[in-house]
């Protein structure tokens, strides 16, 4: 049974000659390495997507004409005047695990994520990322990662803003 598993998880064929434990280890480690590389790629892609929201969007390219993100970006005071978690329905995710909530936050990390640049107040529009970000999620993330990470993020943003290839 173990041999069959090994053959499925490893490209090596020596497992058929009895070296099952070794090959299983190779297969398992190979899977781990692949998973780690995948996660690194995903993290890089996610960061690139997060930072590349600054190019102006055409009005008709806006994800949904019914989305509330632009309203919230235009009126940041609204978030202070009301319980946004209750008003937005974020509380519905409380029934899920922390991991699930983390995925939800990662997928939609900021109420400004879909805002058009000219909707943002000037004080917010000039600060796209890091500790000066208009997005509470990104601000908290930046605080956790420290200034060194911020420098890296800002450098990446500069690359994106000057390189059409990177933006594409």
């Amino acid at each position: 049974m173990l041999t069959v598993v090994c053959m499925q998880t490893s490209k090596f064929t020596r497992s058929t000659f009895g070296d099952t434990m070794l090959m299983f280890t190779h297969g398992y480690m190979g899977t781990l390495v692949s998973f780690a590389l995948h996660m690194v790629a995903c993290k890089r892609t996610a960061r690139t997507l997060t930072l590349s929201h600054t190019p102006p969007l055409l009005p008709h390219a806006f994800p949904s004409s019914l989305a509330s993100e632009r309203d919230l970006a235009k009126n940041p005071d609204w978030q202070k005047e009301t319980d946004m978690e209750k008003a937005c329905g974020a509380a519905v995710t409380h029934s899920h695990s922390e991991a699930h909530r983390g995925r939800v936050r990662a997928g939609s990390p900021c109420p400004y994520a879909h805002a058009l640049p000219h909707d943002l107040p000037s004080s917010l529009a000039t600060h796209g990322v890091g500790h000066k970000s208009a997005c509470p999620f990104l601000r908290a993330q930046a605080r956790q990662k420290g200034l060194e990470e911020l420098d890296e993020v800002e450098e990446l943003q500069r690359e994106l803003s000057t390189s059409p290839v990177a933006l594409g």
Partner: protein
Amino acid sequence: MLRLSTAQPVDPSTPTITPGLALKLLRDGVPSANVLAMPGLDGQADFNVMTRNYSNHLEMPLSWAVQIVTSKFVQASSCPLMVGLADMAAFEEDGTEVKDWTAPFEIIFVPNLQISAFPSSPYSGDDFLAYAELGIDEGSVLFEVYARASPLSLFDVHVGSIKSVGHCCVLPRGTALGQGGLGLEFEMLLMFTRSNVLAC
């Protein structure tokens, strides 16, 4: 154009109806302005759909089944219980872009209680369409529209009325004007209306 519909199939055995409205204002050269409003996501036992206010801000549903649906919407919006008005405010009727637009926090549709098209007792989905088709006269004021500037505004401002300029009509699904044809999913009923503020 105004669509009256139910978010869930009418179930006389429960009995519950979950009414909602979609207002579509056509604009020249740019996508139409749309807004969705409902009294609530949990539905109501009173089958007269012209008794409760409709709003673009909904409260968290109590039903666990609807909560699951709401949690699914979180994948597409960080604020699924709010329908934004920015797109509606950002373009004029002639398609001109408004650079420094303003939009209210909430828009409230107050039904005209004089309209007695819909009974309070349970009825079927087909009857819902028939009641609307037969019971709402041309020229009827359907809703008074109020706007709340911000969450802490003390007063709602009356911004207009929605008045029918024709009879309700049922649009068969799958036709050019039916489901999906006008970007209004689950088309059940379409009524041509005119607002004294947002002329269409």
